[in-house]
């Protein structure tokens, strides 16, 4: 089993170390990091554990660096002086003062700003280009140059603490600028940078927990998106202009981030969930292509950088979807399906964003909105996807919540873009409307989305309970079949493509290989029936016919089912035990009370016939109580006792016994069968002893193919059995045989004697 092989122990070691180190909720000793990308080990275990301590320290260092970086970034952004004001484009395409906390500026609300003079730098503000947050999302190259130049100029002007602002009505305001401070950076900055920090930490944890090629690629993607998020966070602080290096670095870096992410994704998909043929070549070509584009654009060799970036990323995204489809055809790993879904959603929104932006080129205000809000939502969405991937097989709950987030944000973004582009709504109105509509759409399509994303459990609860109790009964009857029966139940529950029972000891149920398999130990439902049982496990692979991932909730569900099965079996056993105790008590009472009285009666009998009659009754009572006390009798054991008993009685009567007993299966007799056969045999022999004056009795018993043949032949003086009075004795025989579903007949033998023949055709039919 490749799945259960080398990758597991390493993951266990990891789980402990990383769980403790990353301060993850490790109460149960189980952190999220034993699955996802970590499960497939390329590193041998010994070197893994040797390097763990070193990695842990590195992780702490990385976390500290991240926090420090964020702190210095915020400090640096808060340091330069700023104008406490919010600007917006007006109908003429001018920069209008929308809001201010500064009493000096209050009278100028609603006026357009046309120029800034700070020290020896004067900047003319001709249009609203400066409000465009990111030059990455400017389509035209020359616009981007102008944007950069304007930002740099305004930033320089503002860096002087005293500035003069020229308004459209000719007024000039002279202001002393204040430091911005941490509080002035705005909530959006802190939210986005916190998200970036989380993404960065997850990337570091994944990479350090198991530094494999795949995890490195994941870390690259996550770090690139961290970079993007940091840029977006910084740009969210924009009032009039960004501090110096950002406008210049924005396009080259962010474009590189996007391209590298896409290339790394292609590379990952080549290797995971399955290594594709020619994976190396595909990866090399993609990386070379990306390097060429990034190199060419940075050196200014390529015009229309934005178009190249968008097209390159879209092409790679489509390529990834193709690769994932191919991979799923080769091996139906559910991870491929989930990844493909994610890719389809993110690529389609990416392309939508591109098209919307290009379509809105004529309306600068609208374009500005799309570029700012749309791209931000998209990057946050991608970042959360990346964040989710390592935890995919951990919890269905995360998936569900994420699907909610993804669905709402996707629908909201597209609607927002649509409204803004087509109907030229205001930013706030369009966002509210689209959010409202998307929540509605989500509520309507929720079940469908969940089914699409997760696959639904086909087995209804009712059927499952039915199965559970049926299996419990069967397990009780045949403890050795526990693995088979349990596999069958789990097969119906999870619909896996493969169910295996492996001779491998597992201590707990868990998910393997990125959620493509689940392993659970075969429980010991019956005490001590098979010492080997604990060392076996059931492995299920590819849930829902390979279209769904196993999650830790599935593991818990499987555990609960096993627990329920255990309880059902224990309950059945307890009931059975209670019944047998009750029967035993009843038998004891009957035996002690009635038995002792019958015995006294027997000793006091006035005639031998009476004594014999009471003895007979006493023996029947004993048979009855014995049957009550011991509910099952093996045929061979019963036969031994019949023989011993009959031999003793016949010997005492000086009659020889010929005993012939054969059976093809040593079945377990029920109480009814045992007591009926016991009494039939005893009755027939008693009859012979009492009346036949025989010298020999031949008893033939055979049970073959469920057909019971019993013949009792004597060489006595009896004749004409039809004329016998069927008193208590022979009537009892008829009754017992009928009870077993058979027939009995007596006939004369030549030269002498009587033969009695009992035939029961379906012996096991009446139990």
């Amino acid at each position, binding site marked *: 089993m490749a799945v259960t092989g080398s990758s597991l122990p390493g993951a266990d070691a990891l789980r402990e170390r990383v769980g403790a180190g990353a301060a993850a909720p490790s109460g149960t000793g189980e952190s999220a990091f034993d699955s996802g990308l970590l499960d497939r080990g390329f590193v041998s275990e010994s070197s893994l554990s040797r390097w763990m301590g070193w990695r842990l320290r590195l992780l702490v260092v990385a976390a500290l660096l991240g926090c420090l970086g964020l702190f210095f970034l915020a400090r640096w952004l808060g340091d330069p002086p700023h104008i406490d004001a919010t600007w917006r484009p007006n109908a003429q395409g001018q920069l209008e003062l929308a809001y201010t906390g500064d009493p000096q500026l209050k009278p100028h609300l609603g006026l357009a700003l046309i120029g800034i003079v700070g020290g020896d730098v004067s900047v003319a503000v001709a249009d609203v280009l400066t409000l465009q947050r990111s030059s990455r999302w400017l389509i035209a190259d020359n616009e981007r140059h102008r944007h950069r130049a304007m930002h740099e100029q305004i930033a320089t002007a503002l860096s002087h603490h005293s500035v003069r602002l020229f308004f459209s009505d000719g007024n000039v305001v002279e202001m002393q600028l204040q430091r911005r401070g941490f509080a002035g950076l705005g909530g959006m900055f802190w939210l986005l940078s916190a998200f970036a920090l989380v993404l960065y930490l997850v990337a570091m944890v994944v990479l350090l927990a198991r530094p494999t090629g795949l995890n490195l690629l994941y870390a690259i993607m996550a770090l690139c998106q961290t970079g993007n998020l940091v840029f977006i966070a910084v740009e969210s602080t924009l009032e009039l202009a960004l501090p110096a290096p950002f406008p210049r670095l924005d396009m080259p870096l962010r474009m590189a981030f996007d391209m590298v992410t896409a290339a790394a994704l292609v590379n990952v998909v080549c290797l995971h969930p399955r290594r594709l043929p020619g994976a190396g070549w595909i990866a090399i070509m993609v990386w070379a292509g990306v390097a060429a584009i990034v190199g060419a654009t940075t050196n200014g060799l390529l015009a229309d950088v934005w178009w190249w970036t968008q097209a390159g990323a879209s092409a790679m995204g489509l390529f990834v979807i193709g690769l994932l489809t191919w991979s799923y055809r080769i091996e139906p790993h559910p991870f491929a399906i989930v990844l493909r879904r994610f890719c389809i959603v993110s690529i389609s929104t990416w392309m939508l964003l591109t098209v919307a932006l290009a379509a809105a080129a004529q309306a600068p205000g609208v374009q500005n909105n799309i570029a700012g809000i749309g791209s931000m939502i998209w990057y946050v969405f991608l970042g959360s996807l990346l964040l989710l991937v390592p935890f995919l097989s951990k919890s269905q709950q995360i998936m569900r919540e994420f699907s909610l987030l993804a669905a709402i944000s996707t629908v909201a973004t597209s609607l927002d873009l649509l409204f803004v582009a087509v109907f030229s709504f205001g930013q706030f109105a369009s966002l509210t409307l689209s959010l409202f509509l998307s929540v509605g759409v989500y509520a309507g399509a929720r079940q469908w989305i969940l089914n699409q994303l997760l696959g639904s459990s086909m087995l209804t609860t009712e059927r499952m309970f039915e199965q559970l109790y049926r299996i419990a009964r069967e397990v009780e009857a045949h403890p050795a079949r526990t693995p088979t029966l349990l596999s069958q139940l789990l097969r119906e529950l999870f619909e896996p493509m493969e169910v295996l029972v492996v001779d491998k000891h597992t201590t707990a149920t868990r998910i393997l290989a990125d959620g493509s398999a689940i392993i659970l130990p075969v429980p010991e439902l019956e005490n001590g029936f098979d010492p080997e049982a604990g060392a076996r496990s059931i492995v299920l692979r590819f849930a829902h016919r390979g279209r769904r991932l196993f999650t830790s909730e599935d593991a818990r569900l499987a555990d609960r089912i096993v627990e329920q099965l255990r309880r059902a079996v224990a309950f059945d056993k307890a009931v059975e035990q209670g019944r047998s105790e009750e029967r035993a008590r009843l038998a004891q009472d009957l035996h002690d009370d009635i038995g002792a009285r019958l*015995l006294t009666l*027997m000793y006091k009998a006035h005639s031998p016939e009476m004594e014999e009659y009471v003895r007979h009754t006493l*023996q029947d009572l*004993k048979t009855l109580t*014995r049957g009550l*006390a*011991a509910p099952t009798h093996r045929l061979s054991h019963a036969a031994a006792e019949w*023989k*011993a008993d009959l*031999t003793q009685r016949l010997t005492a009567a000086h009659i020889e016994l010929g005993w012939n007993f054969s059976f093809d299966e040593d079945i377990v007799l029920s109480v009814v069968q045992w007591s009926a056969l016991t009494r039939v045999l005893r009755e027939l022999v008693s009859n012979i002893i009492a009346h036949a004056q025989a010298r020999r009795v031949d008893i033939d018993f055979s049970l073959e193919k469920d057909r019971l043949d019993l013949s009792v032949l004597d060489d006595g003086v009896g004749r004409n059995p039809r004329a016998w009075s069927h008193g208590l004795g022979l009537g009892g025989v008829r009754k017992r045989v009928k009870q077993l579903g058979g027939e009995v007949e007596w006939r004369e033998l030549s030269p002498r004697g009587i033969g009695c023949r009992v035939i029961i055709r379906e012996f096991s039919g009446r139990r």
Partner: protein
Amino acid sequence: MAVKVLIVEDNPVARSFLCRVVRESFSDTIVITEAGDLETARRQIATQSGSSAVTPTDPFKLILVDLELPDGNGMELLAELARYPATKIVTTLYSDDDHLFPALQCGADGYLLKEDRFEVLVEELQKIVRGQPPLSPAIARRLLTHFRHGSGGGDTAPAPLAPSGFQSSRPMPIGKGAPLDHERLTPRESEVLTYLSKGFTIKEIASLMGIKWFTVNDHIKSIYKKLNVSSRAEAAVLASKQGLV
């Protein structure tokens, strides 16, 4: 000298019946002491044997004990009389191994089923005293399981029972040299037990094994002894572990 017999049985009708059986069974002069419960039985044994219960001067040679007595189970008495030099026989209505096996473990030398006919009881009693105890298939099966799993006792087995007056003079096949013999059956004994558990009669077993029928009986007797001794060794080990001895 008269042979002294103790019959412990609460039902007076059954007691007199058993008295008749005992008198019919032996030609010796018989002195029968009757006891209706365990208390009386203990007193009788004490007065008969003087101060020491283990080495009485004029002991009972035969003790019949009912299992269900008003003030307790006959097995208690059997256990107390583990070293008493008498042939101890359980008389009961129970013929199943669940009841009889513990009694045999307590040191009974055989059992009689009270509902059997007078002649049958006489014959069975004579057989037991002669050293041919009964062994039903169920008990034989139980014995096989018992010895197969081993009683786990130590090797400090107490000395075998002193021979009682009625015992046959045939030497016991029980090995005195090997300390572990008391918890192991010889292959022959196992074979006899296996045949018995399948319902074969003594004669059939003798012919199947190619030995005399009384040799089969010797094996059965030996198995009885081993069961008793091994269970007593078990008890001794248990007692010493619990600090009782």
